[in-house]
């Protein structure tokens, strides 16, 4: 049994930085990530249950970590060595209890809500955010009885998804996979939850013009989430800037009103909003822009697309950026982040309703069959290829690349339509 382990090794981090210049995910070969013989994580207590991983996704933040591009902001929120992988669908290896207190029998398929807040860390009393079930905002992620780690997949104690030996999950992290979900659907629940959280936090109103910049996993999931959870109430119009043809097709399928290449997004938003153009920026423009890219350029463009008092929601993990904030000041714009998940309030048929982000994400996944976004799966041994594929996903017509832990040692599975040939 093998697992991929990330070690603290300054030289290797530096090497991966250099390698990543060739392409995202290229840091895998020379970086701090190593394929080692797996050891199952130590038991952590009565509320912790062993989970055997079936599929574990490769996320943009994972690529950044492997390439050594992650902001130093996160340095103290992880503990080395750790097994990456926080997008996880697995099988409960013993009987357990889920986040709602419902008993689960061994063999139940579960998805992990990876945030390691006050509950898994057995911190009492819980912080105000955990008390309100907004675990994503918990500040205690480096404290308590676990080693530092903001999520499963960044903490040395819990293990992570990229391991054949499985991981330990706290009862508060466990959600049973609904009936009818394939493993691929299930592995999409975690990233979709991020998108759901972003979509619901954006404060979209009736008739608003909304733009989504970027159509990777998060961008597409955001489109799907907006369409399922927000649109029925607001009737907003949604314009998506997507670079690759496959992404454009998917975005249209998930309910975008207009899907254009990124260089046409500004024109599309301008026309949709009937805006004038002043100094290369729209005078009116979009109410909300979801930036699912997270670079200086994308943030600058997002600001240029907004009407006064508009809002940019950063869905992907940004790093250090350089952006002219004059328009932000002048047009009273806001940039907000949207990280992780917790408890959401949605309006359904005019009435507010409260639900876990993960539950809403499952609804979105089910509605739009987001499991189809999983384009290719790799065995752990071929992690270099897998990460390179993930780094070039859009260009290669792929969206989500996952490790298939059950199949390790075998050939990668390719979707029957031939997409995502590794």
């Amino acid at each position, binding site marked *: 049994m093998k697992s991929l382990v990330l070690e603290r090794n300054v030289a290797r981090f530096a090497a991966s930085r250099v390698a990543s210049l060739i392409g995202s995910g290229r840091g895998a070969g020379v970086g701090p990530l190593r394929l080692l013989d797996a050891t199952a994580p130590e038991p952590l207590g009565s509320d912790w249950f062993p989970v055997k991983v079936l599929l574990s996704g490769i996320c943009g933040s994972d690529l950044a970590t492997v390439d050594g591009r992650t902001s130093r902001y996160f340095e103290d929120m992880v503990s080395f060595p750790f097994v990456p992988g926080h997008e996880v669908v697995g099988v409960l290896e013993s009987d357990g209890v889920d986040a709602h207190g419902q008993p689960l029998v061994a063999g139940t398929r579960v998805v992990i809500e990876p945030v390691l807040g006050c509950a898994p860390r057995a911190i009492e009393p819980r912080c105000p955010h955990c008390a309100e079930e907004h675990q994503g905002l918990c500040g205690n992620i480096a404290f308590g009885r676990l080693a530092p780690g903001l999520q499963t997949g960044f903490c040395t104690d819990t293990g992570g998804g990229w391991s054949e030996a499985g991981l330990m999950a706290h009862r508060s992290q466990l959600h049973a996979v609904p009936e009818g979900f394939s493993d691929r659907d299930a592995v999409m629940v975690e990233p979709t939850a991020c998108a759901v959280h972003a979509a619901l936090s954006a404060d979209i109103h009736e008739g608003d013009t909304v733009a989504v910049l970027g159509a990777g996993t998060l961008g597409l999931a955001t489109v799907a989430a907006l369409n399922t959870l927000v649109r029925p109430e607001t009737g907003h119009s949604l314009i998506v800037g997507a670079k690759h043809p496959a992404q454009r097709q998917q975005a249209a399928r998930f309910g975008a009103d*207009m899907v*254009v290449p990124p260089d*046409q997004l500004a*024109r*599309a938003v*301008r*026309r949709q909003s*009937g*805006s*004038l*153009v002043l100094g290369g920026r729209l005078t009116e423009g979009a109410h909300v822009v979801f930036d699912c890219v997270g670079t200086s350029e994308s943030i600058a463009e997002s600001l240029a697309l907004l009407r006064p008092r508009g809002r940019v929601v950063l869905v992907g993990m940004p790093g250090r950026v350089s952006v002219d904030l004059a328009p932000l000041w002048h047009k009273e714009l806001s940039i907000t982040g949207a990280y992780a998940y917790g408890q959401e309030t949605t309006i359904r048929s005019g009435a507010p309703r409260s639900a876990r982000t993960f539950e809403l994400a499952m609804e979105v996944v089910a509605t739009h069959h987001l499991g189809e976004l999983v384009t290719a799966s790799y065995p752990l041994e071929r992690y270099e290829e897998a990460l390179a594929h993930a780094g070039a996903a859009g260009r290669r017509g792929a969206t989500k690349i996952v490790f298939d832990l059950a199949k390790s040692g075998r050939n990668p599975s390719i979707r029957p339509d031939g997409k995502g040939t590794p």
Partner: protein
Amino acid sequence: MSPRPGFVLDVDSSTPPTLFWRGERFSLEKLPEGSRVIYAPEPLEPLKDPVAAIRHALTHPVGDQKPLPDLLFPGMKLTIAFDDISLPLPPMERPDIRQMVIEQVLDMAATAGVDDVELIVALALHRRMTEPELRHAIGDRVYDAFAPNGLLTQHDAEDPDALTHLGLTDQGEDVEINKRAAESDLLVYVNINLVAMDGGHKSVATGLASYKSLLHHHNPATMVASKSFMDQHRSELHSANWRMGRLIKESGVNIFQIETTLNNDTFPEAFSFLQKREWEWKARDRVNYLASAAALNRTPPRVARGIFHNIKAPHRMTSVQAGEVEAVHKITTENVWAQQGVEVEGQTDILTMGLPYISPYNVNSILNPILVACLGLGYFFNLYRGKPLVREGGVLIMTHPTTPDFNPVHHPSYIDFFEQVLTETTDPVVMSEQFEEAFATDPWYRHLYRTGHAYHGVHPFYMWYWCAHALNHLGAVIIVGGDAKTVHRLGFRSATTLTDALEMARDVVGPSPSLTHIHTPPILMADVK
């Protein structure tokens, strides 16, 4: 030797290859034996003394109108409207006809002691002209006398303060035209009638109209019912304009219409082979062809565009007539026909045409994909009287590179139309219902139209409506040598060579089709029997 009339060539084995325009380039293509090639008549003899002819026309008006000097009196309000940059094509060598005519009109006005004179560019929803373009059209003398005093204006179809609503026609169409023109004691309109659709009541009823007014005849239904819009008597577009024109007259607007026709001497000496019959090419023509074809193939499109748009045509005036609109236009139409008419026996299965670098809407600009479609399906397809050259269900093959290049200053809404409308639909009716209003009322387009040099936001729709009759009529449209993605977006098929295109066309019209090539420019009108 007197100019030869138009000619229909039957291609045989000893016929040399035929010239096909390809935007800023051209090629020689071997047409199958048995094909026909339609050549325009040779340029008619121009008027020997155009100024004398103009003065004669102004003092001897036709129809129910007085001689111009009798209409001029001190203290009157005189407005002179004239055609914009879209005419003639290519722009003519100096002096432009508009300059010659306007100078004579002004001369008479000065003699009569008229002080209140304004000049208006009748550009409808076209782009405003630049100063150099205006100087070229009306000459420096007129420009310097009027422009600095604000007496030379460009019609603004979106300026509520500068429009007057004259009423509704019996069919309920709004007639709203330029206020200054409507309130003048005399409105002199100076036309260049390059093709049969120009002039008549269309001059004022379209050239000086508001969007609200144009809406009634610039729409898919009208265009489908205009067969063709080059043939006034079978054109719903013209019927609407005639209704409006008569209402304008009844409202008391006194129009003194001046119409002029040109010969089709289209290209200067170095490019004169473009308007010759290939088998009559002299050594010099062949050298010019080989040299320019080779040079253009190595020239970046932007530079080639610059070269071509610098071409000034050696057009000369062949006739000028003035007076009452309808009487004038009747004579003009005959004169246009005399220069452009070619009798053609029967329709064809496949019509081929080479599209040049210029259309009425891209003078000093880029022939973008929408204008490519409009030039082929709107203009060239409609250059017929009687029946279309190509039979119903037939195939139209055009040669043009059709790259997705746009002039963002002149055609901003075209870019959005291409990116946001054509990706959704190529059906004129659907787009008019779903998108037209949003484009027509877009404040940014309106701003650029009114203050910059942009075509009105709705203009790309009109270009597409121009194609409506052809789109309805044809079985398939194939563009040879075009950018495949762009061609597909236009809803057409893409072929690399003419041979491939003919193969594709056979799938539509059957195994042994008849083929006709229309050898324009110079412009010709097919009289299909």
